[in-house]
């Protein structure tokens, strides 16, 4: 199988170049300055407006299977990831049953393979059994089964002693721990960010301090143990500042944010918009700008989706009873491109935050656009305008505040396993 990409803008970690790429038998066999003969090619891409990236990995996804297949299942979730331009997703453990034993891990990996969708599924194991915050899972066995990291995402491990032992024990197997950092007494029963808008709407607030304290505690314990930690979905200014400070001190910490935190603010919930009810909640404009600065100066390593599908019935209801979360796999590319259009990041940064860094954090080989490397590519049309709606989204759910909004940019092709896939 021969695939030719001519006249493309190729984004690598060393820069952005106009190149021509020949892919043969799953491998990048030639990268040249002059166009490659298209004769005999089974697939040809020749469009100077397209951007060729190393394949994207979303390291924070909820695919809901097993247990909540009415929201999303592995097949629809992977399809959503595929059409979002991803070649891999790391999926959180808060399924039912929880991914806290190798049986569940095996099931997820097998289901993903059965679907035949060209997206690799990397399970994230729970830190504690049943996410109970008390008993550590069998981390060694889970790693053998294919788990790439541990996280009780959705909840914080409240007991600091247990979190400390989790860091230490995971380090034994060279496995990262992903922290959902939240001081849960402060955030209990909260619905949206605490402040003027929570007062206006008469909803219980989640103070920003719940995240700030959570991040501070988790970083402090990681410093004690020396383990590798990754902070999920950073949403506050002080959260970013704390991570910056600990990084400067040499702590092995990485972190992610999500497009919603650099795109939207708490104002989105006005009118009791349940699609904007997420955890951590959308914050203030000051926080949004601090998250952007964190992305710009490299404090924030990764952009992840926190794709959290929910059935419409769980959103089309009273705000108090609505579920937390929004989908994000298919809106990732256009929202990240917005950062480039605003001049905050360049394409090289996007390759870092959507491909190289998440692969590295999860100890996976990151795709490189280099002769002799496997061809795992995400190819983007940065100008394509499209509307987010039931027809354009492939997830089983449509819970996103971007519903019915127009976005610019979309993944047009994915190349994986020696095959090229046209996405629109």
């Amino acid at each position: 199988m021969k695939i030719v990409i001519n006249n493309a803008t190729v984004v690598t970690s060393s820069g952005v170049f106009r190149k021509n790429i020949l892919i043969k038998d799953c491998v990048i066999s030639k990268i040249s300055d002059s166009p490659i003969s298209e004769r005999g090619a089974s697939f040809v891409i020749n469009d100077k407006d397209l951007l060729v990236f190393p394949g994207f990995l979303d390291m924070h996804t909820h695919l809901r299977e097993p247990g909540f297949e009415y929201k999303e299942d592995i097949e629809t979730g992977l399809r959503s990831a595929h059409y979002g331009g991803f070649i891999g997703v790391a999926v959180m453990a808060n399924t039912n049953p929880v991914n806290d034993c190798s049986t569940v891990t095996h099931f997820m990996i097998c289901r993903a393979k059965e679907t035949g969708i060209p997206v690799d599924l990397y399970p994230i194991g729970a830190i504690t059994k049943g996410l109970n915050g008390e008993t550590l899972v069998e981390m060694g066995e889970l790693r053998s089964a294919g788990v790439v990291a541990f996280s009780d995402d959705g909840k914080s491990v409240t007991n600091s002693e247990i979190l400390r032992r989790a860091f230490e024990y995971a380090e034994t197997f060279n496995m990262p721990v992903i922290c959902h950092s939240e001081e849960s007494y402060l955030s209990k029963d909260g619905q949206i960010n605490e402040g003027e808008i929570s007062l206006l709407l008469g909803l219980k607030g989640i103070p920003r301090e719940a995240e700030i304290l959570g991040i501070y505690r988790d970083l402090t314990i990681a410093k004690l143990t020396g383990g590798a930690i990754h902070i999920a979905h950073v949403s506050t200014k002080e959260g970013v500042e704390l991570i910056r400070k600990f990084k400067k001190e040499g702590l092995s910490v990485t972190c992610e944010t999500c497009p919603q935190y650099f795109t939207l603010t708490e104002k989105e919930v006005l009118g009791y918009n349940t699609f904007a009810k997420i955890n951590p909640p959308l914050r203030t404009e000051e926080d949004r700008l601090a998250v952007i600065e964190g992305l710009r100066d490299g404090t924030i390593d990764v952009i992840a989706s926190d794709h959290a599908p929910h059935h419409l019935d769980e959103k089309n209801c009273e705000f108090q009873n609505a579920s937390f979360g929004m989908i994000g796999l298919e809106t990732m590319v256009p929202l990240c491109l917005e950062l480039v259009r605003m001049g905050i990041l360049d394409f090289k940064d996007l390759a870092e935050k959507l491909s190289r860094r998440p692969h590295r954090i999860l100890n996976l080989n990151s795709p490189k656009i280099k002769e002799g490397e496997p061809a795992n590519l995400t190819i983007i049309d940065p100008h394509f305008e499209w509307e987010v709606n039931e027809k354009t989204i492939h997830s089983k759910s449509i819970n996103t505040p971007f519903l019915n909004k127009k976005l610019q940019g979309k993944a047009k092709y994915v190349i994986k396993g020696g095959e090229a896939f046209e996405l629109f």
Partner: protein
Amino acid sequence: MQKDNFKWNRKDLLGTYDLSKEEIIFLLDTAKSMEEVLNRDVKKVPTLRGKSCVTLFYEPSTRTRTSFELAGKTRSADTINISVSASSAVKGETILDSVKNIEAMSVDCVIIRHNNSGVPHFIARNTKLAVINAGDGSHEHPSQALLDLLTIRDYKGTIEGLNIAIVGDILHSRVARSNIFALKKLNNNVNLVGPKTFVPKDFEKFGANVFHNLEEGLSGVDVVMVLRLQKERMGKCFYPTEREYAKFFSVNRQSIKYAKEDAIIMHPGPVNRGLEISSDVLDGEKSVVLAQVTRGVAVRMAVLYTLLSGGRFEDSN
């Protein structure tokens, strides 16, 4: 009166936050013109004959529900009461399905009280029915604020440029929010008084002043609005004991001296006597608590009439 050239064009009454000054004055004036019927021997006029209203209450209520029901009946509307324990909610039906079913029975208006903020707004977006918010969680209770404003106007001769203190659990109070929004639109000075757990500083962003002691908060005010301590809406850590709360924040003979000599005392009810307000003040000559209740019926007649007559104001007598 502005009603000659005023056109009401809202389907619902969800809160005072969205209302303009003109709309508030219009509703107060309409209520005033309808009040007279309550003094007649035969308290009934046919202006809403053939219209039907359902009260859908997911929280207990005496005053508000009775008041809406009486208001509807006085205007000859048919009113039906559904309370949560008697309805399908106990069988697991969603509130939206309940309302859709009510809508399917050709009802004109649904009056909703719910313990969760934003429920009437959610319902209003999803039904053609006129929706009246009779109290949603800690959010709004617009008809209560309107009757409070009408009472103040009757006793003070104006509803603009006054000094008004609201005392108590502002954080959890829908009555407080609806009053703050409405009173600020009419250029009143609003003092919020209570312990810091009940009165976060962010309330200043709505134009109110925040005080944490009665002496400062009540100083020179024309109106003292006392709120009920809503034990059902808070956790355990908002105040240590009722005894301590009463000691520092009870409106009593002593503390009302800080207010103006001719100040009036209001309370939306139900009252915890001896806790947020002492019995002698509640039953005393400055109290207008029962006058509020009377105006509640007039205000609710005005609200029902305004929403159900499509905004046309005809001579209702």
